[in-house]
């Protein structure tokens, strides 16, 4: 097991190196000049050139890359070109809202989606099944921002149950956090619930056809035990996998949701940085999100052993 973990962690390195090279090249080949952004509307070309030089953007590409990687290795993510703040500080400020809302969304989604999926599989080809499936296909079919707007309109403006926007740190006020997090979480959860419920249903259907389920029934075991103890645990691996890969979907949802609900998270930080060509921030953010993605999926791979004793690393 330990050997496997080490091997998997080592395998992350080439992936991250490729991500790093890719992102770096992508950005440097992008038209866009942070100097022009810093200088504003009425700067002259000569002024731009001077700013560019002071930012180190006039250096040849490979030297810029080496400098950047050198800093990275020392744990230094650089300094934002635009706001002159250390990138680590920016991330430190912005990552918590995203992590909190992301985690809450995942928990919420799993709690909603798994029972829904089990229900649909159990009542295969009945109206219950069709209702769940329709819901989950719908979840995929409406753009996130439209869902967000609808929630705001309904819960915040018309019913006035919840605030329209914003973020409160749970350390400040748990209630404030929850009241502001509910709508973004629900919005994000629609896709995620759809994804997980659908996968739960599919893999449960598969498992329900297995011999050991028939064995359990032949033993006279109650139906809910058959479903949850026998079937669901065997269906867990693909469900976990989809939670892991669906994480990518969550990130894209986060970018939109943070705009709609005005949450100061890393999704918006990244989009703003891309639009402003704030190279150090974009590089750091894409590396970070990729690393999170890879790491989450590593954790999920490792968690397979919890559900399936046959899997040994």
């Amino acid at each position: 097991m330990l050997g496997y973990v080490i091997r998997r962690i080592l395998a992350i390195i080439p992936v991250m190196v490729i991500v790093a090279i890719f992102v770096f090249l992508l950005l440097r080949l992008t038209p866009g000049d942070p100097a022009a952004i810093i200088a504003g509307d009425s700067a002259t070309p000569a002024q731009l050139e001077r700013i560019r030089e002071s930012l180190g953007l006039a250096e040849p590409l490979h030297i810029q890359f080496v400098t950047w990687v050198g800093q990275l290795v020392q744990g230094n993510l650089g300094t934002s070109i635009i706001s002159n703040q250390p990138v680590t500080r920016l991330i430190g400020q912005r990552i918590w809202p995203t992590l909190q809302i992301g985690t809450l969304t995942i928990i919420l989604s799993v709690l909603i989606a798994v029972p829904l999926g089990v229900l649909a599989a159990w009542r295969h080809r009945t109206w219950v099944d069709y209702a769940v499936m329709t819901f989950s296909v719908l979840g995929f079919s409406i753009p996130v921002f439209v869902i967000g707007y609808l929630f705001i309109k309904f819960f915040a403006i018309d019913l006035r149950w919840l605030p329209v926007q914003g973020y409160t740190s749970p350390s400040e006020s748990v209630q404030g956090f929850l009241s502001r997090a509910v709508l973004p979480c629900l919005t994000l959860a629609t896709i995620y619930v759809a994804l997980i419920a659908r996968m739960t249903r599919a893999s449960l259907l598969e498992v329900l056809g297995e011999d050991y389920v028939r064995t359990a029934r032949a033993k006279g075991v109650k139906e809910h035990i058959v479903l949850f103890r026998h079937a669901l645990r065997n269906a867990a691996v693909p469900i976990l996998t989809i939670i892991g890969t669906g994480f990518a979907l969550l990130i894209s949802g986060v970018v939109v949701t943070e705009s709609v609900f005005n949450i100061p998270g890393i999704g918006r930080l990244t989009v703003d940085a891309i639009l402003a060509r704030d190279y150090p921030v974009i590089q750091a953010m894409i590396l970070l999100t990729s690393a999170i993605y890879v790491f989450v999926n590593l954790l999920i791979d490792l968690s397979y052993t919890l559900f399936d004793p046959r899997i040994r690393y």
Partner: protein
Amino acid sequence: MLFRNRQFDDKPVALEILGLSVATTGDDSVPILNTIDVTIRQGETVCLVGESGSGKSVTSLAIMGLLPKGALEVTAGRIELDGQNLLDLDASQMRELRAQRISMIFQEPMTALNPVMKVGAQIEEVLDSHTKLPTREKKRRVIDIMEQVHLPDVERIYSSYPHQLSGGQRQRIMIAMALILEPKLLIADEPTTALDVTTQNQVLKLIAELQESHGTAVLFITHDMGVVAEIADTVYVMRNGDIVESAAVETLLRVPQKDYTRRLLEAVPSLAPRDARPESWADPVLSVDGLTKIYSTRGLFKKGRETRAAQEVKFRIKPGRTLGIVGESGSGKSTVARCVMRLIDPTEGRIKVGQTDIAMLGRSELQPHRKHIQIVFQDPFRSLNPRWTVGDSLIEGPLNFGQSRKNALDHARELMELVGLPADALGRYPHQFSGGQRQRIAIARAIAMRPDILVADEAVSALDVSVQAQVLKLLDELQEKLGIAILFITHDLRVAAQICDEVVVMQHGRIVEHDTAENVLSQPRHEYTRALIEAAPGRHWDFANFRELSLRPTETA
């Protein structure tokens, strides 16, 4: 004692099936079972036999109330357990009854146990569902039944997962699970088909022993006549959802009444080797020498694990002759076949096809030699590309060796006739044929290359006995006509006895015995061979001739 000739007429009836009909649901309902009657008395073992798809499993599932919902339903009849009609019970009453009064063992011990639960817990679940025993008592009962089924090291196995047990042990767990509440009736649907002969023998003995001590009635489903001869009191023969015939076992095997039964019995190959063919003086077309295959799984950080699947294997085959390789599962038979075919790379050794050693040739050097040696696989469903017409499959090889499409198709038409299929079937797809027909097509495809050697890896194991007999006959005829040498791999001694000139016995990747079929089967020298032969169920009976197997003095003790 040849059969369990016991009398049950005075025993009370445990289960009675009266006029049971089952059909598929929906508008275009297809009948599956047609008003069948079965009676099982206390302590009796009833065997249900019949070809694949005749409705044996459906019968058992109907009794358990486990017919797949939305696919099959009972349309008429009664199933009476101690006089109570099970079809009148609702879902929870039925659930109560399962494992308490009727229980069931399924065919596949690999998949019938929940892979993510410890086996002890799985047995205990039966007690959880039907009793209210204290925890300690439950565990005691579980350990007790596990001991009754002769599981070794009970405490360890109690907390093992299914994948940590062998097939035989898993099937014992299933039996323990089925019998822990001492049900009236035990249904066993092909419980030993997936096991190798020695394990099968042990499991059959165990069921008989427990039946004796618990007085359970057993409904035993099988298509293996040998097993029937071994354990049955009464036999029911099924065909297309009908009970064709039923009788006490000896009566049925000696004087079958119905044609269908006769044919079924005649198709069972005999353990007596066929008459030896004259010795051939030709040069061998295939000679294998010192063949060794080591599978190794090696990782960057993992220690390499090695499986010696074949070691120092050596044999030669002459034109027109058949060499059989037998041995239990995992003994390395397929490994040898795949090395010979060069589907995998042997670790060491020589494989001479004609005069050329192909053991170490590269992919492109190998290509010209491929046409000399062809293979037929076990699974007729998967060995033909489902997306290709039969014609396309048949001409694939010839096209690769430069034949024109037209010639190849003409030849394919002849081949279809040769294997007994209509020539116009070339345009059809594999799924439009039955299993036996598909295996014929696979054989035709191999023959289309006019090979010198044909490797048949378990080529008939997946087929029904009657179909199996036809395919064996076909191979024999082809060999006559074309003079092909056949390397025939099987775990079934009966089949080996019927087709082979020589037999090689493998164990743990090594050849332990190599002689003529006659000698190996009637005078086995190696202990392992003897054990194999002894474990073959019904080995005293010559089914095809409805009498005892008389000639061999092989009975040891």
